């Protein structure tokens, strides 16, 4: 039961993009086409699952004083492996995502999950957490990317070559550019909060916006104390 719960929480309840608001740099950078979102999400999921697994396995072995360097070494190793494998076996994908792969090292979702979850929980639950968070991240990227691509380019690119033309009128190029990322993310976050507040009201509960969730799992600023 708990395994399944860890798996599903990343998709909605603790979605890394919309609920935890982690990994904003890659989110804003890659969501210019659905294809990029899928690729980045898959690569991040792979790294997340591997790093969660390894960090959980060696969690009792790592002294807390040097845990961050240890986490970063483990994460960077898997990122480099993904980079090499992609270059060799999925060159088309690597061509699109090439500059984003090294960014996964500093993607705070991965370090965040290592610190908040994998270093405190057994391997099986850490893997479930990694898969769930990865899927949640991928879905979040796809939602934002679809929003931006439809408005900004008038297409949906699922895979290079598999392009759906949605409308033929002049697209709103702004949505593909950097400001469009902020606008799209803001609109979707607002919409999600609205839906949740309506749902909560129907159930007669009061709804608190996810401000307190923002850094719920991140304890970095509490280390000094």
């Amino acid at each position, binding site marked *: 039961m708990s395994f399944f719960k860890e798996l599903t929480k990343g998709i909605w309840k603790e979605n890394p993009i919309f609920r935890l608001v982690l990994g904003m740099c890659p989110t804003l950078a890659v969501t*210019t*086409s659905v294809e*990029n979102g899928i690729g980045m999400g898959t690569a991040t999921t792979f790294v997340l699952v591997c790093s969660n697994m390894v960090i959980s396995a*060696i969690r009792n*072995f*790592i*002294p807390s*004083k*040097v845990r961050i*360097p*240890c986490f970063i*070494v*483990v994460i*960077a*190793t898997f990122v*480099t*492996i993904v980079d*090499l*494998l992609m*270059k*060799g*076996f999925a*060159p088309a994908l690597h*061509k699109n995502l090439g*500059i984003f792969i090294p960014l996964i090292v500093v993607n705070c979702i991965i370090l965040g999950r290592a610190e908040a979850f994998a270093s405190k929980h057994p391997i099986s639950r850490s893997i479930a957490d990694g898969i769930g968070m990865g899927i949640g991240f991928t879905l979040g990227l796809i939602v934002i990317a679809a929003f931006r691509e439809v408005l*900004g*380019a008038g297409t949906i690119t699922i895979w290079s070559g598999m392009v759906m033309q949605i409308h033929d009128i002049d*697209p709103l*190029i702004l949505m*593909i*550019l950097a400001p469009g990322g902020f606008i799209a993310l803001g609109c979707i976050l607002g919409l999600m909060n609205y839906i949740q507040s309506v749902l909560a009201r129907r159930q007669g509960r009061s709804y608190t916006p996810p401000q307190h969730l923002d850094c719920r799992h991140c304890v970095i600023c509490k280390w000094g104390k």
Partner: protein
Amino acid sequence: MKEFFKLVLILTLICTASGVLLALVDQATKQRIQEVERAAKADAINKVLPPYDNIPAENTCTFEKNGANWTFYVARDKGLFAGAAFEARSSKGYGGDIVITTGIDSNGIIQAIEILDHKETPGLGANIIKPGFKSRLAGKNIVNAPFSVRKDGGDIDQITAATISSRAVLEAINDGLNAYKEHIDSIRTQGERL
């Protein structure tokens, strides 16, 4: 002091383990990556050249011009010079270097261009990889080079809102064509000698 050594030891252990793992993966993928890169290059050359019956990737000649090396991949068909392809690079792209392969046939007509690498803005400059832009250069005679975009008085339509990227592509091609024109005789001989 004892704790200090423990920290150093554990960090060293973890780094060594990851180093070994990376070395193994590198060993396993090195050859494959080289093959993929070579295939991508050969594929681009293949796409831009007229029909040929030799191996242009192995039939090359290199010239030095303004400190840059220009390599021409010479195609030959039934014993005659069929055309040549070259790889050109422009650093004036909006997001970084743009690498282009251009193919010219024996009559000096540009056959096609292929964008090998670019970092242009998705949805704007990145449209240089679309057939709609690439085909604007096909069929142009190199005697009309250097080419320029309509905005600069030339006859190539730039991509709307991506003039810088369009210009960079043309700049790279023009540079290559200069080198090609300068050495056309030796490139021709290279095609016929083999």
